[in-house]
C-alpha cells in the first residue's frame, strides 16, 4: 500500500514538474533583473520588463494580430474541413487514406523549407507582409488537425441516427443540420482548440511571410530573445498564454460542458 502510494505521489510530482516546471521558469525570468547559475531563483527581482513591454505599443499590436489571425484561421479551417470530413466519413472515397495523409504533408516536412518556399510564392502574388498571407499559410497547415478530428467525429456518429431522420422525411441537408452537426459539436470544439492554439504559437510561417512588416506575438518574442533579452521574451510568452486560456474558458462556458466530456466517448 505504502509503496503504491509513494509511487503515485512520485508520478504525479513528475507530471507536475514536467508540465508546470517550464512555466515557473518563465514567470521567474519575467521578473528577474539578475539570474546567474546555479541559483534556483533570480538574485534580483524587477518589474522593469513588464512595464517596458506595456509602454511599447507593439507588443499589444502583435497580440491583437495573433488573435485575429488565429480566429480567422479557425473559421477557414472549419469551413473547409466540415464538408471534406463529412465526405471522408460517409462515402467510400478511392484512396481515402492516401488523401487523408496528403493533408498531413505541410506538417510532415521540416517547417523551414516548406514555409520559405511558400513565402517566395506568396511574394510573387503580393501576399507577403500581409495578414491574409499568414492566415492562408496557417489554414493550409492546420487543416490536418481539424480534418482528422472532425472526420473521426463524423465516423463515430452511427449512420442509423441519420437514416432515422431521413426515414421520417428529412432531406439530406436537414439531416445534416439537425442531427449530424449538433452531434459533431464536441469534435468541432476539439478541432478549433487545436487549430487556435497551433496558430497562436506558430512561428516559421508567420516570420517568413509576415516579417518584417507585420509581427505576430511569437515572431516578436523571437526578435526579443535574439537580442538576448530573456526577460522581454518571457513577458511576451506569458501574455501569449492569456488569449489561449480565454479561448478555452469561453468554449467551456458557452458550449455545454457535456459536449466536452463527450469527447472521451
Amino acid at each position: 500500500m505504502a509503496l503504491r502510494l509513494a509511487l503515485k505521489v512520485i508520478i504525479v510530482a513528475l507530471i507536475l514538474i514536467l508540465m508546470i516546471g517550464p512555466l515557473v521558469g518563465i514567470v521567474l525570468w519575467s521578473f528577474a533583473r539578475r539570474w546567474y547559475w546555479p541559483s534556483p531563483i533570480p538574485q534580483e527581482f524587477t518589474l522593469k520588463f513588464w512595464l517596458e513591454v506595456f509602454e511599447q505599443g507593439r507588443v499589444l499590436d502583435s497580440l491583437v494580430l495573433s488573435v485575429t489571425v488565429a480566429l480567422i484561421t479557425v473559421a477557414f479551417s472549419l469551413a473547409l474541413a466540415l464538408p471534406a470530413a463529412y465526405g471522408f466519413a460517409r462515402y467510400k472515397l478511392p484512396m481515402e487514406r492516401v488523401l487523408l495523409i496528403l493533408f498531413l504533408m505541410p506538417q510532415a516536412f521540416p517547417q523551414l523549407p516548406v514555409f520559405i518556399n511558400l513565402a517566395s510564392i506568396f511574394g510573387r502574388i503580393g501576399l507577403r507582409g500581409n495578414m491574409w498571407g499568414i492566415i492562408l499559410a496557417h489554414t493550409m497547415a492546420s487543416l490536418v488537425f481539424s480534418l482528422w478530428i472532425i472526420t473521426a467525429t463524423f465516423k463515430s456518429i452511427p449512420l442509423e441516427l441519420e437514416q432515422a431522420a431521413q426515414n421520417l422525411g428529412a432531406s439530406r441537408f436537414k439531416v445534416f443540420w439537425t442531427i449530424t452537426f449538433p452531434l459533431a459539436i464536441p469534435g468541432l470544439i476539439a478541432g478549433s482548440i487545436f487549430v487556435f492554439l497551433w496558430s497562436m504559437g506558430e512561428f516559421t510561417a508567420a516570420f517568413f511571410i509576415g516579417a518584417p512588416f507585420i509581427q505576430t506575438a511569437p515572431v516578436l518574442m523571437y526578435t526579443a530573445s535574439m537580442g538576448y533579452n530573456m526577460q522581454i521574451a518571457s513577458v511576451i510568452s506569458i501574455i501569449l498564454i492569456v488569449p489561449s486560456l480565454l479561448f478555452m474558458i469561453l468554449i467551456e462556458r458557452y458550449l455545454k460542458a457535456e459536449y466536452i466530456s463527450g469527447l472521451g466517448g
Partner: protein
Amino acid sequence: MSVAVLECVNLKKYYGHVRALDDVSFTIEGSELLAVIGPSGSGKTTLLRSVAGFVRLDSGRIYLHGQDITDLAPEKRDVAMVFQNYALWPHMTVFENIAYGLKIKRIDKAKIREKVEWALKFLGLEGLADRKPSQLSGGQQQRVALARAIVVEPKLLLLDEPLSNLDAKIRLRIRFELKALQQKLGIPTLYVTHDQEEALSIADRVIIIHNGKILQVGTPEEIYRNPSNLFVADFVGVNTIIKVPVKNGVAKIGNVEKRIPNQQKIATVVIRADEVILSTNKNVESGPEDLVLTGVIRGRLYLGSKYRYEMEVDGVNEPVFINHGSDVETGTEVKVVVPKGSYFIF
C-alpha cells in the same frame, strides 16, 4: 379488388456472390402484421431496408398503395421504421425525438404538442417528455422509438428486431403490448425477427426466408402445423430430429412408413418434443395416424415444469430426445405416442 398496402415483386439483391434477396415477392394487405423470420444472414434485414429505401435493389419493384416507390428516396416514402437499436437522437429530449417527424412536415406547434402528448400517453411514457434517451431504460427507449414512428401516421410501419435488445422478461410483456398497439392503430406492419416464437405469437402472417429465398408463407398456425420442408419445421419448433435410412423409396420409423419420392438415401423425422405422450403402459391408446415408438429411457434432465428424456428407440440408431411432465425412472421400458401433426417426415 383492393390494392395491396405493400407489394414486392421479384426483389433481387446480391452482395458479390451472396444472395441477400433472391427473387422475393409478397404482399401486405389491409392492416395486417406480417413477420419475416429467418436466421441471421438470411436476407430479412436487407428486405426491410430495401422497403425503407436504404438498400438499392439489383432488380424488382416495390409498390406502396399501388405507387411504385422503388426509385424513391427514403425521405419521400412515407414508411416509418423502428431500428433495432432504436437510433434515438441523444442530443434531443424524448419530446423532441417524437416531434421530429411532425416538425419536418411543418405541422403547427400546437398540433405537434397535441400529437406528441397523445403518443406519449398511448405508449405509457407520460412524465418522460423532458428526459434524454440516455436517461431511459431499454424498454422505455424502445417505446420512444415506436412513438416517433407512429406519430407521423405512416402508411407502413417497419420493425427491425424491435425486441432483441430487451431482456427476456420485458420482451415477453412488450410482445403482447406491441401486438395490441398494432391492432388498435391498424397500421400495416412489416416485422423482421430471428425469433420464431416471437413471430408466430404476434404475426397475422409469417414469411420464412433463408439464403434470400422465401421458403414458406402462411398464418402462424399453417406454418406450425404444416411446415413445407425440413428447414421450416426445424426453425419453427423445439424439435427432435431423427435420421432414418430410406429403403426402396420408403422411410420407416416405428409404425409409420412414408414414401420418399426423390432419390434421397436418408429421410429426416422431425418430432415436436413437447407434444408427445409418454407412457409406461404398453396398451396406451393411439390413433391410426399417430407415430408410436417403443424403447427404454436412458437418461433424464429435470427442466422445472417437465423432464427431458433421452430414449433408446427400437430400430433407431441414435438417441431420441423428448420432453414430458411425468416422472419416469431411467431404465424403464416406455411407449411414446406422437400425435398426427406433431411429427413430419421429409
